[in-house]
């Protein structure tokens, strides 16, 4: 039991929280940066290689298109269907291979990213599918290449949806980053477990909750504002 009346309790709490918040933001930030790129790429691949998509026949072969699409679908489904806590454990050997260590603040980025990419890829897929088919047709009529269609028509038109989906993904990853704390991933989850659970400090638990809620709120408000600003409908 920690005595909250002990001298230095509050400054110590503050320092602990500050450090843990920094770790969480770092993990989530790096994860989301990688996810933005790879999730966008994977989600786009899902849409363009689908039947009737603009890359239905990569290299002129419909078989290649079907295979790429099926593999991508499987990867995304697999990533989506494994519970995070199991994914995290299953990835320990892989993380060790990649970074030399399976535990720690940075090492936790690996399972977080592996969970976030399929999550975001699916949202990207949905957002891109909502782009009006007529716009793609207009692009074709202007003689756009496939790259131009993706980069100048489909993705720009989906931006508000992509931002909202990104916000949702960030919130999930903040959530997962707390779980990572349980296996030595640091961050706010680590504080909750070490002080709150093992040493029964309610104040620590409450403080962690407040910080997490604040992060999620800020992410959601900023995301919604940005999405609205980018939407000109």
């Amino acid at each position, binding site marked *: 039991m920690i005595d909250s009346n002990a001298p230095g309790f509050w400054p110590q709490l503050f320092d602990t929280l500050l450090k843990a918040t920094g770790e969480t933001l770092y993990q989530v930030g790096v994860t989301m940066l990688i996810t933005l790129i790879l999730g966008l790429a994977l989600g786009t691949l899902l849409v363009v290689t689908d039947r009737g998509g603009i890359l239905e026949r990569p290299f002129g072969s419909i078989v290649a298109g079907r295979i790429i699409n099926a593999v991508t679908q499987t990867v995304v489904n697999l990533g989506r269907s494994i519970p995070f806590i199991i994914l995290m454990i299953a990835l320990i050997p892989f993380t060790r291979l990649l970074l030399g260590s399976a535990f720690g603040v940075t090492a936790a980025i690996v399972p977080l990213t592996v969970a976030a990419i399929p999550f975001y890829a699916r949202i990207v897929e949905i957002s891109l599918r909502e782009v009006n088919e*007529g716009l793609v047709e*207009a692009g074709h009529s202007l*003689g756009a290449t496939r790259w131009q269609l993706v980069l100048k028509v489909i993705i720009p038109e989906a931006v508000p949806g992509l931002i909202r989906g990104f916000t949702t993904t960030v919130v999930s990853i903040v959530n997962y980053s707390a779980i990572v704390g349980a296996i030595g991933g640091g961050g706010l989850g680590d504080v909750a477990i070490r002080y709150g659970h093992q040493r029964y400090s309610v104040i620590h638990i409450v403080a962690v909750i407040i910080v997490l809620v604040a992060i999620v709120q800020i992410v959601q408000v900023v995301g919604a504002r940005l999405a609205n600003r980018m939407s000109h409908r």
Partner: protein
Amino acid sequence: MITLSSVTKTFGDAANPVRALDDVSLSVASGEIFGVIGQSGAGKSTLIRTVNLLERPDSGTVTVADRELTALSDRELLQARREIGMVFQQFNLLDSRTVRGNVELALEIVGVERRQRTARTNEILELVGLEHKAQQYPAQLSGGQKQRVGIARALASRPRVLLSDEATSALDPETTDSILQLLRSLNKELGLTILLITHEMDVVKSVCDSAALMSGGRILEHGRLVDLLSQPGSQLARGLFPLGELPEGTSTVIDVTFVGLSSERPVVAQLARTHHLDVGLLGAAMETIGGAQSGRTRLELPGTIEQHTAAIDDLRAQGLVVEIVRSGR
């Protein structure tokens, strides 16, 4: 300028084939406005989409500006499409871009560098009367303004051909008129060849030089409007001059069509004078069609068969087109 030759397109599977285009051949001359009219499902959109190969025909050839598109490689086809503009019923503008941005998209795709893009965009926006809306987003525009942006985008890279798929069908009658006038003036000023699709005879009547009637994936008749008018039995001509239902009875009824100068002639008075027939006027319509004053009157002829024959022969001898709608006893 545009030639379709024996073009066929079937949708669906072997069990339930839909013949959207059934051996369609069509020729659009350079500098004319050609209208394809038909009811919903006739295959009009499929037809126009084969012209820039948005829809690849199962068989037949498509030639635009002396280039056979059906024989081109994918890369060459992109190039060819850049020389064919297209406008759509639902405008298909990017919500994410301003009016200026939408027009510039066409130029970015072609690879025009920034400064020239700006200059060309200013020029084309002025041409369609939207220079003051350049910074607005499509959502802030009326339907007619959106279609002007669509036209500006389609023409930005200076194509010689414009395809229009029901471009005015989502617009109210006044806006429709203003868009049609714009198309007409672009046709005149730029020498633009326009192929347009519509289900409204008024559109054909007000801007087209030539037209085709489409039904069930086939072209039933086509030609210059002035020629169609003097073609007995032409459904298009009947559509251009709707004279209503036939009256009850067994009297002889004829339609007399005048094209050009002959519309000035007092036919009814002349029939009365020369043939002593007390002609009944059942209906009449006057239009400027394909640039020429044209008219059609529906007359009821009293008297004997012999009198009718003589009167009809006389009218035909004067170069009028006479169609016997009902042969009386």
